């Protein structure tokens, strides 16, 4: 019996790894967008220690 190069187990692992990778990338983009939105909003204030420099 010939061994199949790709078992269903491999496709499941691939879907898991791809999913986690995409989620991490999306999380990085989200945190960046959130940071930009926060620092460009009108009520943003630098911490006191930063403004003294």
């Amino acid at each position, binding site marked *: 019996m010939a061994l199949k190069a790709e078992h*269903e*187990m491999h*496709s*499941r*692992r691939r*879907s*898991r790894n*791809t*999913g*986690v990778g995409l989620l991490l990338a999306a999380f990085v983009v*989200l945190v960046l*967008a*959130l940071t*930009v*939105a*926060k620092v460009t*909003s009108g009520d943003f204030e630098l911490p006191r220690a930063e403004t003294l420099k």
Partner: protein
Amino acid sequence: MTDISSQPQAFEGEASFGDYFALMKPRVMQLVVFTALVGMLAAPNGVNPVVGFASILFIAIGAGASGALNMWWDADIDHIMKRTANRPIPSGKVQPGEALSIGVALSGLSVMMLALSANLLAAGLLAFTIFFYAVIYSMWLKRSTPQNIVIGGAAGAFPPVIGWVVATGSMSVEAWLMFALIFMWTPPHFWALALFMKSDYDDAKVPMLTVTHGRKSTRKHILAYTVLLVILAVGTAFTSIGGLIYLTTAVILNVLFLKGAFDIWRRDEAQAEADGYAVEKSFFKLSLLYLFLHFGAIMAEALLRSSGYGGW
């Protein structure tokens, strides 16, 4: 030695990404996203779109995390009930320990990120909601009292309040009215389901009202809660989140809902069995539309109000 017989064991626990996603109860997450969004839009303050999007996302992740914790805890009874036997843990796709880890990790992440994106009060409410659903409802109430879904329904009612708090940083009567709408809607919705999913809860020994007090009593309870819900739902039309669109929607839906509850109350088990629980099933379907359209109407009023229309 490796042989063919070792294959199935090696395969176990090899969940796909979709199996992990299913742990988070995506259909419940849809409702959470929708009601939290309505709560946020109905609030008098505007929210930065990025902050609003991120906050709704973290509320949804928190809800999904509590769903994973619920599946971890309830794996034994999910295995018995037909409705839940295909969930990721009872079907063997995801290991219980994985569900616990995902639930705990995502709970922490969602609460922390909501505190950063919105405010501490919203994050605190989300943490309380997760605790309420996973511990108070799943671990305690669900298997100990027939009032399980009455009190446990509070967990599903919090998202619009959290959405409101994301926008305003504080709570108000209107936010709690939206909470009350979901809270009062939950018992008739689940009791109708319990009436036609006859043997599931009996087999799993979950003390649903149908099991502890009988089906006749459950029918009375559905009518009683529906009457209270109708008063609340129509009354909400005359608050600052209501308006003509909401009132029209509420009057039509509540007349239909009340009629459905009355029909359920009027019939007995023999009649229900004769038509395959048709009335109970249609009441259950109507209940889904009922909640969706009420919150849709609140959203419509909020959007119109922001462009100078809507409201009273």
